[in-house]
Every structure is written in C-alpha cells, then in structure tokens.
C-alpha cells in the first residue's frame, strides 16, 4: 500500500485522500461513512451478488465494491438514486429471508443482515417474503442448510470454491428458484464436502449454521416448531415495523451475551496455527468463530479445528489422579499422587542418580509448559534426558536447516507459501495434514497462476491438482533432488550472484553431486528424465520456489540427508532470504515447533543454545540458582535403550501416547513395562498410561492459558475458555506444584510469568511478552528486545559467524532392506478427519460418523492380483508385528505400495505394530516410512471401511466462483446499475 500513489475523491461533498487501486466501498468504510454491503467480505473480495452497496458516482449508479477509485471521483452514498437502489437491493434480499431474529440462533449481535437492515432504517419490505420449495438439509452431522433463509449472496460458494478450494458448493442460478447445491445437487452428507466449515463461517445470516448452535445459542430458540412457527407468523401479522422487531431482538441478544462466552484460542490440532474465538455456554462448546483478524487463517478452518472439540467434554476425560496398586488403578487425591511421585523420585535419585530419569514432553502442551518441564528435568532432577515428540517427526528437517541455513524453522510465513511462483511438495499431504495451508496453496494455484509440483508415493489431492506429479520409488527423494540440483548447475541456471555473496562451500558441494546424473536418478527413483528436466526448468523459471516437506521425507533412515539436500537446492537457486521462497518443513502438531524452541531437547536449552556451551549453561545456572549438567542427554530412542539396559529407572511423560505413536509398538510397550516408576500426565487414559504407576489428569488447551508456536515460528496466545473439568489441572500448574514439592521454590502466578522468565534467558525470544501477544497479535521468532519480530528469515544474513549459508554435501542413504517375503511396501500417515492416532478426534460422534475406522488402501492392480475388493479383511504382517484391516481399493496408491492411515488406538489395527526400530542415522527419528509387510486375505466379502457418506466418494463441482453473471442473465433480474454492464 505504501508504494501506491494517493489521489483525492469527493464523498458526499467532502474531499478525501485515498490510495490508487482501492475499492470505493473500502474507501467509504475507512471514512466511517455508513454503506450497506452484504456480500462483500475482506477475505472473499468482490463477488457482486447482493447489489446493496450501490452508490452514485459522477451521476451513475454503480456497485461500490466493484469500482476502483479514480482522481476527482464524486461519490454519493446518500443521494436519492443511491438510497433507492440500496433499498431495492435489500428488498430483494428480504424476499428470500424471514426476519425472526429474536428466536433465531444467529441473533448474536454479528448477523450481517440484521445489522444492515437496521442501519438502513428499513421499516417494511415492499417485496413479500417468498419461501423456496426446498426442505432444510439436516443430513450433515455438523451443519445445516435452510434454503428458506438463504439470500443467495454466494459467499459460501466463493469460500468453498476459491478459499478452501474443495469445489463442492455452487448456486444453481438457472432453476426457477435458485439455491445453493452440493456437488450436483445431493444431500450435504453425501457430497464431497470435507466439513471444513468455511461456508458456515462466512454465511451472513442463519442459512448455514453449526448444529451445535441450534436451540442452544438463543434464550428462546429451543421452542418446538408447533409453537415457534405461529409466533413468527404472529410477529409478521402484527407488522410492527422492523425497528420494533429489532429492539426486541437486540434485547434478547444482550441477554445471550451474558451467558455466551467468547474466548480467543489457538487450535490444538496441527501445526498451521489457526486462531479463532471459541463460543462457550457453561462447559459446552457452542461453536468456533473465525475472524479476519486471525493472522494465519483468517476465516479458514478445517473439520478438526471447526468441529472436532467434543473431546474436551468427553466422558473419557481423566478427572482424578490415579495410583497403581498391583494390576489396577485407584483414584487418589492430588496430595497422595504428588507425594508418591516425590518420595519415589527422591528414592531413585538418591540410589541411581539423576540420569536414571527420563522426561518426555509434549507438542500438545504450551511453550510455557515445555519450558517448565525442561527446567524441572534440568534444575530439579539434574538431567538433560529430555525429549519431545518432534523426535518422531521433524528433527531431521531441523537438522537439515541447522546445517545449511542456521535456523530450524520455516523460512517465511503462509503468505510466502502462497506467494511462491512455484511450490514443491515433497512427501507431505497438506490437504489432509495441514488443511488450511493447503487451502492457500490450492487458491494460489487455481486463481493466481502459481505452479505446483508434488513428489509423493500417493496420488493425493495435491498431486491431483499439481502441474507435475513425480512418483519416486520409496526412499529416493534425495536422489532426484540432488539430480535436479546438479542439472540446474550444469545448465548454468544456479544463482551465481547469491552464491558468491551469501553462501560458502559451492565448489565442494558441486563436486559431491557428480554421481547424481539424470541417468542414475532415473534408474534409482523411477522418475523419467524428462520430468526431472521439467522440474529443473520450472524452478529456473519461477519467481521464487518454496519447498514443503513433512513425514514422507523425515521418517526415513536418510531423513536428515534428504532435508539437507532440499536446503542445498534452495541455496543453489537463490531461494532463501527473499519473499515467496524458501524451506518450509510443515510441522505436524500445534506446538512441535514450540516444544523444541522452548528446550525440551536433550542437547538444547530454550532457543537452541547447546547445553554443552559453558557460557550458556552459566547463564541458566545463575538464573535458576543451581548447577546444571554439562552432558548432552538422551533422546527418546536413547531413553528406551537405557530402560532396556536397566540404566533408566524412572520416566515422567507429559501428553504423549508413545505406546502407539513411537514406531515398533510391541518393542516400545515391552520396554515401558520395565520401568521401575512411570508417571503419565495426560487428558485421556491412553495406551501409554496403562503402563504408568501414577496418572495425573491434565487440562486441554481450552481450559488454560499459554502460547503455542506454529510451523511459521509464530507465537500466539490463547486464553482460558473453560474451567478445568473435574479435578484436572493445567499442566503448568501441575509441574509448578510438583517442582515445589521437590524443593523448587517456583512462584509463577500465570503462564505470563513463565514466558517472561524464558524471554529474559533465551536471546531468540528476548522481546516476547504477553502484552505484545494480546488478542490476535503474534510474534515470529527471532524477536528482538524491542519487540521487532522476523516474519522472513535470512533477509540480511544467515545466523553463522560470517553470516553466510553453508552448502553441505550429503550422500543418499538407501532405505532399509527387508526379507523378500515381505513383498508389499507399507506407507502410512494421517487422515484428514482424524488427528494423528485419534485420541482426541475419536471422541467426536460426527467425525466417527464420517470416518469410523482406519483401513488399508490397496491399488486396483494389487486388488486384482490378490482377489480382494472394498471391504475385504486382510492381515498384514511385518517382521515386528501384525494387524487386521479392511480394504479400500483406490488408485491413490499404485502397484505393491499400500497405505494405512494411522488413526487407530487398537491392538488390532494400529499401524505402528508393523513399523520397525530403524531410524534416521543422525537424529534417531524412526523410519516409519520404511516398512514392508506381507498380506494374507482373511475374508473377501465385507463392508467398505470408508462409509459411502465419506467426502472421498463425493463428486466435486469446480466453478470459477459464485458466477454472478449467470444471475445477471436471468430474465427476472433487473439491473440497478446505470453503467458498466457491458464490461461484466
């Protein structure tokens, strides 16, 4: 905006300075001049369906949302003609919408129709309300569509087609009475709808509503239709004029506000970092309400963030501490549980020393809680044996970045992801695992001409949408990445100026690529040479390349090497330190990034400062008043080995179901059995908790304050929406209490104090404070003491002594070879509907209705060869264990590659019963993606594990958007404009 020229316009006789390129409606709003607008939304742009924003410009009537300012423009919002056009437009809307606000669940002060009619001072409508000949669609578990209330503004369509880009909703403009339809007009529940909630989020009235609101939000909305309908008729019959109706409905809305609590929170599922308001009544979640103020997601949500909160009030919540007595757990008081932990900890520490302890932290917990757990381990117990679940996923990505560019985080923000000329997704499936990031990539591709390359074993949604789909042999990404890099250098397409000025080690790195010829790459990866050349060309031609990667890269034996190869490729092509480019490891959990940032790692204090660095250690020793261990601690894998060797006796685990989430579950579980004393702190009675001696009931995100750091490195604050359920407590309170009973003398009144302490110690977070994170404000680290944050890394320099990045030669590590009898390659990962292993999402009835269980995806070729079909029951066996699953036949997978979603906590079907204990050579992240199995057919006939009502069976209906021209072409549409119709 700052670079645009300013010009002056007249609005209602007054002169205003505005920016070139601005929409007239925005200019009017900026000056706080009242202007009706129903369909214009900052996150959706100009869709021109409602006609209410008509103004008179230089004597002609035009839509102010679709007109750009021009010098000397004379804009009238209140002239006779403008007013008449606005009122006529609103009248046409009210023809489609009944105003029964007082008994409407959407009467919460933010209904756009209500507020606009009131602002315009409309008392009566000249076009009577006409019901539409369609039933209310209640088929979907989470939301409903009421055609009779739908004003056909098409914001839902725009959101579905061009923001979420799932392409399910459209308006059938040609039928006698237009309506919104799903796919080709099927019930919502049978459509391709992925339940993301975008349409409901943007609906300006009550046509699309969350079912959780119905009969709950209003004071008088749970009335039976037998009473409600006559009451609505009565109000209409009496016709008091709308101002009278609104007076009463506003009174009612005010009453509601006293019991509906609206709290800003940060989503607790994946690493995208969506923020929104959660509306609660008592301990009940009424709905999730996103806002354009949210820095990452705006109005966007996915099925989990929008609708997946039932787990908070699940009957399965732990609400009391439990203590093991023999083979059963007994409920206990907090005193009993904490005292037992204290006495056992003291006993074991005195007998076996501090390193007999292991601590496992959680990417579900807040930054503050992670800070406290590492402080507890280091300063009170005296060990660096602390790790978190990033060990299962993202450590190799971090390592690859540390080696080359210096910071273990995304290079930029979601805007850079969407702005990149070319996006390359390697071994990641954002459409299911990071849905809101996927929306931005899909939109950039559909609307803004950005290019997309997907490299994956599976033809997932992003692959289907891509310009180029690479399908490498499993575990060979390093090879094609290196070959493409070599080809780029050979062609002279590398960024010489950038390399000379900002990067070390080019010559050595170039030499290391010698063996990665196109020939070699094609042989190893099965990717045709033409596709490799095409990839190189697309990178060369793109204005900025961003590479996204996740578990498809990082859960391999050569994961750190492949991550390094990605960073190398980006360095060679000058794709760091500029907007719309760079490396983007997509963090899987809401706070994977933060858990690592705040020091629950065996080698790092908060802010990635080594525990072996004397100066750093002294800083923490001084602050905490104790001496600290200078030895690097054990990671997850090391801890399990130490337990098996009898060296580790006690473990404290916070918020992690490692019994199912770590690879090779049988091995992990038999190891946990060997612990002398095991404390598990969790929201649920997980599989891991079954091995514990003491279980402490924790509170989930909605029941506490704190901060999370998303995949962009963005720190965001959440506020407490609910009281802790039962006797559960926020993790930070439990840790503080435990530390004090162990002699810690901690005095944190709130998480703000914890953050303040951490910010004072870790230079990376120097300027982070709760004041700066107020509301929807956020900070991207590094944050300087004055509060300046860093949305884009490496703009000036790389964080190495000479400020230069380091090209780091790496060699391909081939995947593990397994005995030949295991003839099928097993791939695994997440499913859109469920989060991870499913402990949270399997508590949601609606989600379980849409995706009740896991399954195995088998290619049509393999299905034919083995005589299986949808619903067949098969047994998969690896060297490590076996599971039974029902089959889904799909061309998402090919040949002898099969896929098992990880959403299971069952001894019969959890995929990690099959995975091995092999791991990344550098970081020990398990090689989940290097597994092989053999398959035995148990039953041929059976029910498809994916129900017919799952979105994957729907048929998308792609449109350019709401396609308002089709409305304008209707015979019964009379334009209100007096110019410009020819241009549309």
């Amino acid at each position, binding site marked *: 905006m700052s670079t645009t020229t300013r010009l002056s316009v007249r609005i209602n006789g007054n002169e205003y300075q505005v920016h070139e390129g601005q929409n007239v409606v925005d200019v009017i709003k900026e000056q706080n001049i009242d202007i009706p607008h129903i369909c214009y939304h900052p996150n959706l742009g100009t869709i021109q369906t409602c006609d209410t924003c008509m103004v008179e410009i230089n004597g002609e009537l035009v839509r102010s949302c679709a007109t750009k300012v021009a010098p000397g423009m004379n804009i009238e919002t209140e002239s006779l003609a403008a007013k008449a056009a606005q009122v006529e437009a609103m009248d046409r809307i009210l023809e489609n919408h009944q105003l029964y606000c007082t008994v409407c669940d959407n009467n919460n002060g933010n209904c756009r129709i209500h507020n606009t009619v009131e602002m315009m001072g409309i008392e009566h409508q000249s076009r009577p309300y006409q019901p539409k000949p369609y039933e209310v669609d209640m088929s979907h578990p989470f939301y409903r569509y009421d055609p009779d209330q739908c004003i056909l503004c098409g914001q839902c369509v725009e959101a579905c087609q061009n923001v979420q880009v799932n392409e399910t909703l459209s308006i059938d403009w040609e039928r006698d009475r237009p309506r919104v339809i799903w796919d080709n007009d099927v019930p919502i529940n049978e459509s391709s709808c992925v339940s993301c909630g975008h349409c409901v989020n943007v609906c300006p009235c009550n046509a699309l509503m969350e079912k959780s609101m119905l009969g709950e939000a209003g004071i008088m909305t749970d009335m*039976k239709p037998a009473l409600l309908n006559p009451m609505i008729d009565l109000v209409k019959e009496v016709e008091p004029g709308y101002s009278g109706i609104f007076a009463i409905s506003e009174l009612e809305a005010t009453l509601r506000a006293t019991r509906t609590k609206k709290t800003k929170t940060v989503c607790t599922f994946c690493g995208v970092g969506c923020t929104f308001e959660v509306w609660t009544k008592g301990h009940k979640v009424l709905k999730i309400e996103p806002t354009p103020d949210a820095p990452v997601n705006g109005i966007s949500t996915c099925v989990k963030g929008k609708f997946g909160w039932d787990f908070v009030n699940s009957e399965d919540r732990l609400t009391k501490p439990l203590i093991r*007595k023999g*083979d059963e*757990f007994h409920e206990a008081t907090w005193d009993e549980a904490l005292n037992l932990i204290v006495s056992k900890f003291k006993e074991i520490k005195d007998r076996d020393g501090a390193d007999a302890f292991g601590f496992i932290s959680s990417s579900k917990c807040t930054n503050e809680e992670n800070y406290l757990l590492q402080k507890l381990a280091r300063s009170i117990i005296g060990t660096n044996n602390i790790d978190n679940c990033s060990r299962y996923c993202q450590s190799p990505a971090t390592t690859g970045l540390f080696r080359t560019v210096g910071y273990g985080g995304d290079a930029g923000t979601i805007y850079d992801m969407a702005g990149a000329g070319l996006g390359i997704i390697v071994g990641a499936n954002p459409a299911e695992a990071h849905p809101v990031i996927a929306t931005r990539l899909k939109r950039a591709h559909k609307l803004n001409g950005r290019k997309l390359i997907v490299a994956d074993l599976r033809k997932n949604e992003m692959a289907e949408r891509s310009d180029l789909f690479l399908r490498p042999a499993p575990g060979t990404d390093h090879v094609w990445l290196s070959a493409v890099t070599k080809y780029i250098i050979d062609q002279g397409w590398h960024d010489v100026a950038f390399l000379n000025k900002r990067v070390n080690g080019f010559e050595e790195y170039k030499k290391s690529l010698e063996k990665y010829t196109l020939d070699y790459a094609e042989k190893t990866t099965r990717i045709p040479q033409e596709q490799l050349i095409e990839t190189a060309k697309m990178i060369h031609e793109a204005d900025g390349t961003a590479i996204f990667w996740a578990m498809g890269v990082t859960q391999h034996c050569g994961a750190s090497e492949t991550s390094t190869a990605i960073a190398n490729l980006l360095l060679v092509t000058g794709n760091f330190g500029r907007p719309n480019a760079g490396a983007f490891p997509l963090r899987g959990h809401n706070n994977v990034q933060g858990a690592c940032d705040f020091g629950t790692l065996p080698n790092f204090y908060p802010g990635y400062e080594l525990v072996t660095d004397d100066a750093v250690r002294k800083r923490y020793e001084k602050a905490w008043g104790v001496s600290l261990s200078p030895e690097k601690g054990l990671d997850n894998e090391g801890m399990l080995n130490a337990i098996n060797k009898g060296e580790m006796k006690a473990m404290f685990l916070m918020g992690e179901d490692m019994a199912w989430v770590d690879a090779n579950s049988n091995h992990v579980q038999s190891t946990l059995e060997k612990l002398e004393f095991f404390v598990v702190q969790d929201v649920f009675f997980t599989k891991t908790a079954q091995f514990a001696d003491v279980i402490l009931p924790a509170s989930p995100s909605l029941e506490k304050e704190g901060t999370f750091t998303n995949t962009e490195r963005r720190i965001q604050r959440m506020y407490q929406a609910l009281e802790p359920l039962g006797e559960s407590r926020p993790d930070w309170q439990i840790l503080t209490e435990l530390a004090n009973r162990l002699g810690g003398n901690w005095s944190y009144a709130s998480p703000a104090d914890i953050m303040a302490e951490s910010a004072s110690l870790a230079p990376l977070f120097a300027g982070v404070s709760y004041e700066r994170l107020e509301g929807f404000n956020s900070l991207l680290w590094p944050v300087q003491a004055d509060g300046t944050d860093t949305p884009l890394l490496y703009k000036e320099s790389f964080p190495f002594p000479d400020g230069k990045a380091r090209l780091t030669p790496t060699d391909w590590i081939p995947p593990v070879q397994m005995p030949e009898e295991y003839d099928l390659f097993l791939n695994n990962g997440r499913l859109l509907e469920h989060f991870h292993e499913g402990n949270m999402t399997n508590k949601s009835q609606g989600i379980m209705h849409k995706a009740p269980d896991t399954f195995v995806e088998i290619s049509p070729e393999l299905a034919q060869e083995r005589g299986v079909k949808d619903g067949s029951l098969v047994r998969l066996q690896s060297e490590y264990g076996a599971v039974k699953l029902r089959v889904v036949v799909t061309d998402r997978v090919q040949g002898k590659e099969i896929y098992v979603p990880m959403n299971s906590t069952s001894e019969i079907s959890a995929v990690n019963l099959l995975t091995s204990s092999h791991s990344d050579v550098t970081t020990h992240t398990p090689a989940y993606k290097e597994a092989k199995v053999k398959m035995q057919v148990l039953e041929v006939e059976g029910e498809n594990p994916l129900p017919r009502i799952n979105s994957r069976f729907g048929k998308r209906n792609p449109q350019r958007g709401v396609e308002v021209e089709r409305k304008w072409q209707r015979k019964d549409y009379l334009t209100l404009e007096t110019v410009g119709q020819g241009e549309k």
Partner: protein
Amino acid sequence: MAKPTTVIRKHEPTEAEKQAQALGDLVSFVAKNGDALKETLKVIQLLHESGALEVIGALIQSREKVMEIGVSQLSKPTMTRGVNNVMSAVGMLGELEPETIKKVFEGIVNGMQHSAEEVRAGKKTGVMDLMKAYKDPDVNRALTVMLGFLKGMGQKL
C-alpha cells in the same frame, strides 16, 4: 515392572458421602449469602400467602400449553388488528408536536368554557352574527386551524 492395565477402581462416593458433601456446600453458601437469602425468603412467603406462588407454579408447569393458547389467541384477526390499531395510535401520538397539542388543547378547553357561558346566557346566533363572527380575529383563527386540519386529513384519506 508394570504390566499394562485398564482396570480403574473409582472411588464411588456413598449416598451418605454425597449428601454430606452437598449439605456442606449449601451451608457454606448460606453463610456467605445470609442476608440476601432471608430477604428472598420473605418475598417467597408473601407470594405464598397471596396465592401468587401457586399460580406462577402452575403457569411454569404448563408453559408450552399456555404460550400456545396465548399465541393462537393473539393470532386471531381481531386481535392482530387490535394490536395494529394500538400500535398505530401509539405511533400517531408519538409524532405529534407537544407544543402544538398543548395549544390546541388549551384552545379546546377555553372554547368549551366560553361556549358554556354563551349557552347559559341564552344567546342565539343569527345569520348576521355569523358574518360578524368570522371577522372576529379569535373566531377566524379557530376556523383557519379547522380548515387546515380538514385539508391535511383529506390528503391522507
């Protein structure tokens, strides 16, 4: 050395424990809110004595039925017309200028007093009196007001 177990022995409070807990909560609440509770009880006592409590109880018990009856009664055309009339009347009153109304009313009162006096005096009016009267400034002003009123009313009819 712990084998996994899913057995949880919950401490189910006995009826007596639950009651004791509930009573304890209540006692502490009473202690905190003694005055307010006493006043509330007084109000309840009054309501009870007057029989109002019984009526309220019955209304709440059959609230849906009562509302249905109320709504269906209100929905009858005569009722909706009545409501509309009352609202129009109220609306009209709202639109009148208080100052003008005051003057008109004062005029009416004064006129009635005057006319009563004339009638009492047994005065009769001939055609000439009428001609004279409309030259009288007071009578003329009143006539102008009336004519203006008739014109305005006619415009809206």
